[in-house]
């Protein structure tokens, strides 16, 4: 799957699942600092990613994610594995 497709789905999920304004979302944005997503919100996003991309993101990898682009990296690696 193309990275751009994952990025675009990621933005949709952030808007739909976590109610973040589309304009605020950049790939470099940090979930907690820039997007004001709390730690449970990050867990919810990962659950949504798992459902949408049919992948499994282990807790230890999930804990390392701080930015939107890092989340895309993990999904990209899993989807294309």
């Amino acid at each position, binding site marked *: 799957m193309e990275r751009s497709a994952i990025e675009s789905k990621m933005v949709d999920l952030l808007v739909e699942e976590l109610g973040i304004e589309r304009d605020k979302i950049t790939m470099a944005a940090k979930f907690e600092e820039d997007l004001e997503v709390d730690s*449970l919100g990050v*867990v*919810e996003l990962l*659950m949504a990613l798992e*459902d949408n991309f049919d992948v499994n993101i282990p807790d230890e990898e999930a804990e390392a994610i701080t930015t939107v682009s890092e989340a895309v990296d993990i999904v990209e690696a899993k989807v294309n594995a």
Partner: protein
Amino acid sequence: MEPKVVLVTGGSRGIGRAIASHFGSLGHRVVINYASNAAAAEESAAAVRAGGGEAMTIGADVGDAAAVDAMFSEIAEKMGPVEILVNNAGITRDDLMLRMKVEQWDEVIATNLRSVYLCSKAALRGMLRAKWGRIISVGSVSGIAGNPGQANYAAAKAGIIGFSKSLAKEVGSRGITVNVVAPGFIETDMTAALGEDVTSSAAGNIAVGRLGQPDEIASAVGYLASENASYITGQTLVVDGGLAL
């Protein structure tokens, strides 16, 4: 309320059966978990169906992580995600502290407290997705006031209260409430084992003047699961006829 999927752990007898029946009478889809007595669980299921609910039974040791995962997978497949979780499974291994063996401690902590962690964690995913959920755990007055011979049981039941307050704070913003119902002396097999002397002297300390009935716990659990209780979370509702005042 539209029909919800309700899991009652330890639902084959006593308070668990009353809770299952109560949710059945409200038209919910009730999953009755049991440890070993499949026939008794089927009687609970029959009671649920008689009240107008849907029912299934499932055997699992709720203190065992793999068994809990397998149970939740089977429920998801057959009924859908659990929307109301009632952590009711509980055992006693009473003994005075000086005589209490480490096995008695461990068994009670596993079945009464570890199970609450395992089942709540397993249920949370679906509840977060739905942005709605109810987790109600059955505590005990023992866990609030203490009871000689029940250091293990009281520790587990007190643990449930701290657990529920913490989880309530974690997931409150997601439409999920987490509460405890703490029964006093209720007429069940568990209290019948104490003998008539103990139960009749206990009744003398109860303001209402009698032991409680399992249905009286079930209705409190039902209330906390309802939309009417949407602003109540992290609480322990003591249902003891005024025993621990």
